[in-house]
């Protein structure tokens, strides 16, 4: 009897098989139909969709193939040492506020993402908010912003809606309708996860202030579905892998299905460092280092970059040639530019009774009353508010207590006992203004351990971003008061110096002069090169971009397959 346990692990009697065992493999010299760089949110979806309709696909992944059964709750390894992240392997990045400044070592948050099959969908918190119709035309609605590059998307919510629904049903999203939801063509496939104390408190506060709380949508199973477990409420969604396979990462959803087609190979521990082109300006495939550091090639009829906003940028910028002296697909000069992080702010509160935020999924209820920007506020910006608490014992003890509590000694220890199980955090997930000067470039001086230029971040929050953060912090404080907290403290608002959300660096658009890819994610400059990941986003939404990235990937896959079938690549 075959049954599924621990997500993608297939147990057949005594024989334990994993998805990569028996997967189809391709020879390097064979030109496959598609090589996809990255196995994360977008890469996993593209691989499954293209392999399912019969194309030969090789997915290049720089990290290892971990099984859910290997995942632990080891906070030191995951949250302090960052074992799974790029910064554990390549910690050297540089930072400057403006292009006039000299880059210096980034001692801040850095550009961060997960290395490994499934990418950051393995360790993310799985909040799956849809964008709203207004997100795709904010330039038309709001107008221009001084010093910013706010632009409409080349597609509408209505065009993307069927693919949002595809994510709901094929990836697996739990949730329930709310008063501000955009139109949806099909209900959620699963009911929401159970409410937590923090959700009860946020809902109580919303009711008192005339606002509306609704269950948070999650890419987490709330019931047995698709051969995967329901959420076991272990409390380690954010930053950790789900050992139960309940979190709908691409590792346990689309990638096993892509492998099962017999058409897809996921090649792990392979770092692509160049996209090759021929004299006609067409991509011929990728060059990469394998696990032993040997240089290898994979030929392909078309290349798809889905390596996240930082690594996609790096690949395009390093893949220069006489025909593309400023990097591949960069005739606009906008590769790496219009980087957006999603601003946020937080207010903490302590409550009389235990809330035990360390149990259950990371958030419970959300408030979307302030999602839309509102000209009456006098600035560009909007956001959603949720009760979200991604803190575990070490992180909490090091940095979360109110500032008027000593950081050591008897009072410190007493406060840890009093606060850990009683603390709630309300957070605003906010817009970031797209600005051309905010960018990822290649550092001209510093090299990483493989001799490549280090990633250089240039970033300065727009004045409206700062205003948005303070405006929302007043809201989350008012909510915390209305919820009845007996102690309230703010997370100080600080300038951005890194993020896990790496958006906008190869933005979509109809005009090749100011965008990198067209409405089908095809590079304006290279007919058989496609880019689909966070870099495609034109505006930032309100945090939680993965739902939209995957909807874009489902849509892109459908169009790319049509182009391939009609010999239009």
């Amino acid at each position, binding site marked *: 009897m075959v049954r599924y346990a621990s997500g993608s692990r297939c147990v057949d009697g005594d024989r334990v098989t994993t998805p990569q065992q028996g997967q189809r493999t391709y020879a390097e010299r064979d030109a496959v139909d598609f090589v996809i760089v990255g196995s994360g949110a977008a890469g996993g979806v593209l691989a499954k969709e293209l392999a399912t309709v019969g194309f030969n696909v090789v997915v290049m992944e720089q990290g290892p193939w971990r099984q859910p059964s290997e995942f632990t709750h080891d906070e030191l390894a995951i949250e302090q*040492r960052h074992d799974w992240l790029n910064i554990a392997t390549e910690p050297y990045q540089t930072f400057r506020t403006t292009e006039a400044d000299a880059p210096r070592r980034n001692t801040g948050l850095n550009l961060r993402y997960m290395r490994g099959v499934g990418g950051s969908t393995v360790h993310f918190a799985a909040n799956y908010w849809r964008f709203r119709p207004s997100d795709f035309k904010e330039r038309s609605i709001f107008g221009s912003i001084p010093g910013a590059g706010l632009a409409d998307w080349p597609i509408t919510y209505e065009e993307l809606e069927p693919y949002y629904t595809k994510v709901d049903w094929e990836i697996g999203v739990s949730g329930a309708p709310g008063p501000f939801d955009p139109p949806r063509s099909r209900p959620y496939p699963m009911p929401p996860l159970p409410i937590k104390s923090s959700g009860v408190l946020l809902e109580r506060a919303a009711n008192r202030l005339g606002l509306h709380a609704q269950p948070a949508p999650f890419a987490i199973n709330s019931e047995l579905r698709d051969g995967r477990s329901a959420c076991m409420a272990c409390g380690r969604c954010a930053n950790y892998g789900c050992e139960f396979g309940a979190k709908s990462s691409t590792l346990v959803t689309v990638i096993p299905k892509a492998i099962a087609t017999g058409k897809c190979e996921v090649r792990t521990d392979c770092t692509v460092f160049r996209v090759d082109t021929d004299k006609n300006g067409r991509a011929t495939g990728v060059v990469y280092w394998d696990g032993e550091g040997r240089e290898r090639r994979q030929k392909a009829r078309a290349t798809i970059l889905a390596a996240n906003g930082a690594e996609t940028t790096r690949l395009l910028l390093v893949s220069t040639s006489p025909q593309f002296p400023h990097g591949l697909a960069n005739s606009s000069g906008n590769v790496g530019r219009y980087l957006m992080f999603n601003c946020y702010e937080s207010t903490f509160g302590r409550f009389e009774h235990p809330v035990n935020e360390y149990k259950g999924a990371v958030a419970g209820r959300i408030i979307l009353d302030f999602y839309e920007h509102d000209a009456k506020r006098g600035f560009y910006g909007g956001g959603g508010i949720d009760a979200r608490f991604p803190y575990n014992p070490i992180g909490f003890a*090091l940095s979360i207590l109110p500032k008027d509590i000593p950081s050591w000694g008897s009072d410190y220890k*007493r406060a840890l006992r009093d606060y850990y199980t009683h603390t709630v955090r309300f957070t605003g997930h906010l817009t970031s203004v797209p600005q051309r000067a905010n960018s990822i470039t290649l550092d001209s001086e510093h090299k990483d351990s493989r001799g490549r230029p280090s990633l250089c971040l240039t970033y300065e929050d727009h004045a409206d971003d700062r205003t948005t953060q303070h405006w929302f912090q007043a809201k989350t404080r008012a909510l915390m008061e209305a919820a009845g907290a007996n102690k309230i403290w703010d997370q100080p608002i600080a300038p951005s110096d890194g993020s896990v959300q790496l958006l906008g660096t190869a933005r979509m658009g109809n005009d090749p002069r100011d965008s990198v890819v067209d409405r089908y994610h095809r590079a304006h400059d290279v007919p058989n090169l496609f880019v689909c990941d966070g870099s495609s986003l034109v505006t930032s939404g309100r945090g939680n971009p993965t739902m939209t990235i995957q909807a874009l990937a489902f849509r892109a896959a459908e169009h790319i397959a049509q182009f391939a079938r009609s010999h239009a690549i």
Partner: protein
Amino acid sequence: MTHRELLPRRAFLIDAARVAAAGWLTLEVQLLAACARDTSSRDTGFAHLTIAEGRTLRAFAAQILPSDDGTPGAEEAGVVSFIDRAFGMPFFADSVTVIRSGLADLDARANVLGGRRDFASASSADQIAIMRAIETTPFFVTVRTLVVIGMFADPSYGGNRDHVGWSLLGSEHRPSFTAPFGWYDTHLAPGASTGTA
């Protein structure tokens, strides 16, 4: 792992000082990257610390997280064993010097302040006074961070013995939970939506 570039001590201390200043960032404890996961050295003396260093560090850790109010502190959690093991990592060599000189400085201050042989022999009040005088130094920030990590990290790293750190916080050590999770969802959901609370 072969490509791991380890943070030099200087960079770590800058990070640590930044945490002390900003307070809200999770410290990147790259210095712990090769921390061995074995329990063989438990209670058999130190692998890297001298007996005198261990004595001073133990007193220091016991002031960061005291054993008081009838609950365990750094002492019961075995925090010093955790730090001793952290000392064993090759790339930690530079930081060891800073911590060692900081521990010696604690002993010297105890001698000046109260004519004591070392920091551990000083009265609790004197120990606290000495620590207050140096609490913004890289030495203090680094060791305080290590004490906290040793208290709350997975016990396989040598601290948090018998999960005393997690128990102190009131955190149940279980692989999964079922709703309700806290007081408010037990007593107020789902009726909370009517605003009755």
